[in-house]
């Protein structure tokens, strides 16, 4: 049984998992906040809502940590984020969907983390960077068109690299359901990307 202990209001929260390993809850947040934020942003298509979702998810995680059985922390955290996002999507259904906004740019010169246009190739030309940015927007737009469950399955398995079993734990459904959703999500994504073939890399364009 996991346990949270804290000696003072400003001390790091410490958690003890089932195996007796002690770690700080802040370390859990630091380790998983990037994954949590990206999952929430692609599920909600809105960076501000995604920040709220991640904040709310970590508060929920803190309160529910005594129910964590110490199995797979990443799957557990992503499950909380998924549930928070689904609740937000459900409550937002009556309102029109907000399109995926680009991150706001700052005027300061301080170094930022990898942004939306920072793909791994640092030697990319401006044309390549523009193409990659368009490709990324196209993929995220196609992800946004997928059904909510399929989008979550594809994000967990293909973007966040979870196994089917971990995704099943995160989504709270059976393994067969995960397989089906991943397969249909990939199929839907491929069909969508076919329609935007000009934005795709040359290899994919030739195959299409």
């Amino acid at each position: 049984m996991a346990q949270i202990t804290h000696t003072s209001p400003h001390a790091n929260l410490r958690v003890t998992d089932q195996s007796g390993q002690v770690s700080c809850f802040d370390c859990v947040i630091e380790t998983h906040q990037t994954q949590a934020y990206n999952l929430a942003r692609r599920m909600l298509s809105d960076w501000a809502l995604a920040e709220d979702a991640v904040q709310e998810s970590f508060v929920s995680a803190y309160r529910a940590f005594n129910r964590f059985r110490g199995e797979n922390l990443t799957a557990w955290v992503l499950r909380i984020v998924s549930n928070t996002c689904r609740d937000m999507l459900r409550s937002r259904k009556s309102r029109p969907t907000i399109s995926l906004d680009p991150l706001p740019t700052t005027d300061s010169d301080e170094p930022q983390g990898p942004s939306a246009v920072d793909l791994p190739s640092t030697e990319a030309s401006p044309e390549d960077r523009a193409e990659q940015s368009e490709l990324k927007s196209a993929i995220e737009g196609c992800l946004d068109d997928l059904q909510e469950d399929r989008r979550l399955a594809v994000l967990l398995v293909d973007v966040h690299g979870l196994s089917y079993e971990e995704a099943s734990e995160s989504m709270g459904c059976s393994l067969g359901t995960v397989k089906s959703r991943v397969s249909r999500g990939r199929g839907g994504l491929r069909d969508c990307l076919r329609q935007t073939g000009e934005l795709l890399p040359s290899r994919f364009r030739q195959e299409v």
Partner: protein
Amino acid sequence: MWIFRSTHKHIGQDTLSEYLDGRLRGRPLERVELQLADCDACRQELDELRAAVAMLQALPMEEPRRSFVMSAPPPEPARARPNVALRAPNWVYAGAASVAALAFAVTISIDATGGLDSDLDSQDTTVTASAPIAETTVQSASRSGDTSGPSEDAAAPQQLAAAAPAAATAEQADQGDTAAGGAAAFGAEAGATGSGDATAPVAAAAGAPPPGEGPALTQAAAPPVVAPQPETAGADGDEVTTTNQSAKSLTVEEPVIEEQTDELAHIGDLIDDVVISGASAWWRALEVAVGALAILFLAGLFFRWRAGRRDSV
């Protein structure tokens, strides 16, 4: 080539997706590879899926604009204290729903297997049994009407015409409205037996309720009077036809006490009918109430389960 096409089966998208993730082993894997070797479309679909997955995996992870590290434990959420009914444990809801569902099943099964029909059958028997009485009384009235003058009572044809459809209505009572059937039978008998008084039988045959009956019975008994009378009377045979001819001279004076006794007996039958039909209505209301209770408890259990699931995460 034709044989190849007829036996060829395209690889399903789920199987291709699993193959792409390397989750196929043994014979399924061999089968897919054999099919891929023979099927160009399958290979193309696999390549497209592989490219789509590669693009998804290449999506960059963006750093959040701020850290979510908590310097202090978050405050406990202020939760509204649920009322007493909602604070009950789940097994209370489950047990109550089970009991209600069981009671609902029992009431439905009793209704469906004819537990109520026995009451209805006895009621119908009572109603149909009164029809021959009406016919018999009409016949006796016609036989004794030979001594009367032709201009004695102009309303006699009306009462006899009403008596015949009333008997037919008593037969229809097997199918539906028992109160209407009972009232019609009452009207038939009253119309036939009360031949001494010209106005009372006509009023009875027209569906006028006996003392103490409500206006609903009057309305229920009224339609048989409007029903086509000659056809029904003719269908009953020659006796009724001759009764129509000889009924103009009905002058037999029946004792008033006997008439009142008959009326009281029929009022008793009507009360029995109403009580039985009332019990049936109460039974149906009980079924609906028990069913609604079962649904209510099940819904409560479901909402509590959902709330618990949300809290557990």
